[in-house]
């Protein structure tokens, strides 16, 4: 049998082979480098991107966006002919491009993110994910990152069109940047809102209702942002010149939007977290962050001339609403913690005294909430005292007293009602295991009874004739607060209610004094070994 002789390569062939090999090696290196980078990304982002880019929804939206942008370029340009050569024509073109971009950014992408998270729950894949190494926060952030990536792709498509519009003059560079920044930020915020609503309801009917709510919110955002964009494009970036408008808006965007976004993301992750885990601490930290950002926002108002008290109204009003909702749920938390959660709690006396209020439980929730409500009241009163007289829109002495009384009365009433909710939930937990939302329902019931009860009784004894406000209506918070707003002096009543609240909270603190005592929860040997091994592995 003849031996097979390998063909002798010519020098040219060898050189060509070398260059192929080297380019192949280079490609392999790039591939390995990309893979290493890919490993650092959130797995949800990788999966969602793969999924989204193959999905019919993306293909259709992308194609429609291209078509709409192209069509508007042709139609808009021709409609501006021949003035386009010598007159600034950017506003009309920019407005058209804004609407082409806003539809996917504010409607399609947030809705897709909502459906994606809802789909994980419906299809049972969320359960599969929850037993992997991914944390609920990573899951939510992965969904958000994927939505942002889609936004970026849509934005890139429209970028040449917006550049073209800019060259037509009439819309300056800062306005163009402000317009795009506003749209991007709104898109991200609306995606966070949509993600927050996705796991909120567990029943089918609830899901449909949630979807409708989300769609309405998105359409509302589209409308509001549309108006803002129209103002911005038509009249230019007025905020830069007018501090009284600019500070609240820019400050709100810089300070409040991230804090609220973080709170919503934390709440969404908490909804996906199993009940055996500590869901409360991160929410409490996020609430503190919102408090701090509102305080910073209100104090920014001092830089302007008029805005500080308007910002105070919005800031403190918003915080009170938020804390009414949050505190009722914190008070309704389960007092039972798994050993693992207990092991993570602070162990020393100092740690427990300072940080216990961030740990889960109804008693810590009550004290944490009342402390924060008190701080909000102090912030409001402090702002009034510091800035009154310094700005042109200052209060009269009567108005100043009214604001201070109103804030303290609200906080005092809420504290007293929270004490009742705490008691109600405690008795309810003996036979049931209610969700924290029941706490809010209990607060509503307590508040309604506290106001309607005395009013109904006095109305009955007064033969159903009208009667003036008296101390018998002390628990009627609606009447008391409206009396304060009408200018009546209810300081004595506010002090009494405040004292009741303070004594009640102190009582709860004394009853739960064990919470701050130093205590160690032993870590089982087996678990300790595992944790040490994991730590060594990471090292």
């Amino acid at each position: 049998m003849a031996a097979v002789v390998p063909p002798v390569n010519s020098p040219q062939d060898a050189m060509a082979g070398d260059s192929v090999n080297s380019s192949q090696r280079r490609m392999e290196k790039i591939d390995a480098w990309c893979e290493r980078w890919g490993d650092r990304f959130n797995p949800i982002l990788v999966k969602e991107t793969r999924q989204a880019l193959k999905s019919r929804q993306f293909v259709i939206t992308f194609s429609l966006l291209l078509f709409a942008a192209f069509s508007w370029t042709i139609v808009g340009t021709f409609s501006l002919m021949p003035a386009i050569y010598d007159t600034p024509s950017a506003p009309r073109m920019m407005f058209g491009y804004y609407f082409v971009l806003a539809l996917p950014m504010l409607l399609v992408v947030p809705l897709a993110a909502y459906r994606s998270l809802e789909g994980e729950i419906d299809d049972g894949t969320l359960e599969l994910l929850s037993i992997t190494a991914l944390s609920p926060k990573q899951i939510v952030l992965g969904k958000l990152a994927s939505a942002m990536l889609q936004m970026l792709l849509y934005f890139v498509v429209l970028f040449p069109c917006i550049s073209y519009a800019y060259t037509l003059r009439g819309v300056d560079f800062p306005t163009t940047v402000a317009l795009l920044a506003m749209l991007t930020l709104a898109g991200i915020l609306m995606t966070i809102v949509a993600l927050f609503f996705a796991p909120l309801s567990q029943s089918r009917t609830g899901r449909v209702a949630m979807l409708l709510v989300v769609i309405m919110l998105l359409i509302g955002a589209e409308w509001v942002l549309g108006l803002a964009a129209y103002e911005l494009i038509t009249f230019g970036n007025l905020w830069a010149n007018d501090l009284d408008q600019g500070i609240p808006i820019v400050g709100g965007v810089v300070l409040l939007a991230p804090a609220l976004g973080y709170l919503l993301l934390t709440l969404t992750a908490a909804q996906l977290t199993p009940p055996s885990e500590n869901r409360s601490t991160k929410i409490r930290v996020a609430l503190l962050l919102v408090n701090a950002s509102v305080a910073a926002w209100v104090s920014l108002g001092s830089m302007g001339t008029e805005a500080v008290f308007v910002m105070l109204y919005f800031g403190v009003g918003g915080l009170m609403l938020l804390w009414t909702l949050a505190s009722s749920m914190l008070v309704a938390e389960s007092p039972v913690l798994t050993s693992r959660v207990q092991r993570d709690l602070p162990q020393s006396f100092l740690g427990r005294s300072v940080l216990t209020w961030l740990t889960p439980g109804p008693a810590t929730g009550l004290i944490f909430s009342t402390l924060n409500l008190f701080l909000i009241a102090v912030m409001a009163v402090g702002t009034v005292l510091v800035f009154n007289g310094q700005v042109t829109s200052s209060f009269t002495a009567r108005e100043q007293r009214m604001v201070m009384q109103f804030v303290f009365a609200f906080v005092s009433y809420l504290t007293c009602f929270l004490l009742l909710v705490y008691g109600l939930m405690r008795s309810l937990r003996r036979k049931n295991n209610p969700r924290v939302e029941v706490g809010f329902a209990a607060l509503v019931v307590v508040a309604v009874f506290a106001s309607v009860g005395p009013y109904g009784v006095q109305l009955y004894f007064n033969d159903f004739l009208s009667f003036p406000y008296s101390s018998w209506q002390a628990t009627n918070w609606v009447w008391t607060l409206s009396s304060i707003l009408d200018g009546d002096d209810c300081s004595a009543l506010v002090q009494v209610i405040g004292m009741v609240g303070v004594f009640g909270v102190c009582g709860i603190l004394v009853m739960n004094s064990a919470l701050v005592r130093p205590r160690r929860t032993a870590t089982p040997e087996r678990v300790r070994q595992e944790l040490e091994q994991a730590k060594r592995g990471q090292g």
Partner: protein
Amino acid sequence: MKNEKGVKQSGKKFEVFEQTRVSAGDLDGMISGGDGLKERSIAEGKPHLGYSAPVHVRSDDCIEMRRLHRLFGDTKAVDDVSFSVKRGHVFGYIGPNGAGKTTSMRILATLDLPSYGDAFIDGLSCVNDPALVRKRLGFMPDSFGTYRDVNCREYLDFFARAYGLSGAERNQRLRWVLGFTGTEGMAHKPIRGLSKGMKQRLCLGRALIHDPAVLILDEPAAGLDPRARIDLRRMIRDLADQGKTVLISSHILTELAEMCDSVGIIEQGKLLATGSVDEIQRQQADEIELTLRVLDRSSEAAVVLMRLPYVKEVVTDGELLRFVFSGDVKDQAELLALLITQGFPVAECTSHRKSLEDVFLQVTEGLVQ
């Protein structure tokens, strides 16, 4: 609900219940407490108020359930279930629909919490250390849990990333899983186009992607054709041979009998029998059917047999005598010796032991909650 008394009592002993174990949070009947409470309540026949066994006791058992309870309102989905599975064993979990199999498997998979009791994987508590348990656990629920617009390889790659695998290790695991489950040919096909059998293989692959020590498979053979079932059986046996511990639930009892080292029969949340298939058969089947071939005078032999205390329901069919025999092996030998000494020409003796299916029917009552 009676158990609430326990909550109240344990609530007073806050320190005590914090130092013992608590089956956390969001439960219908949270029960916790100290040792003494539990001992007393069991003695009095009341619901248990505490858990006396130490939480983390080193054990060779890879899967262990201790006094597991799961209540949904008044319904006891799992009612005091305890069993353990040794490393490298396949444990079959048998029971009618609604018996509590899926609930207890979900607790093991750290997807649900027990109302009382605990489950352990490799000595780690599913309640207190779920994150450590998850690392060693592969779970395959009764639904597929797949994604749209993703192919098989991407699907497995995603779960590998989700379990924290990276680089060469991930690629190696992917290759192994695709090979083991026989899905290499399907790697680049979209999941939605796969048959049920292939989807089941893919889901088994997903459960195996991080090389877990324990596999929990909820009805993996449901709806599969005979060949796919045989393949699945082979794969599970291979996994057990590799040292993995498998807990599998199924309605196809003949398959379980062949595949499992031990089984547990559950009905209405209660574990009715547990052990190896032979043990359960022996425990439950105290009567067997014997058949004798007597070449001559079979009717007279039947009369002799009727006189024996452990023989009943003798049926004569020509040379064959069939009867229910409730004695042990010695009695069986004595019976044959008796017939032979009396001159009956006994040519053949065969016994028919009850199958797992018979045992299952005998143990369970077909009750559904």
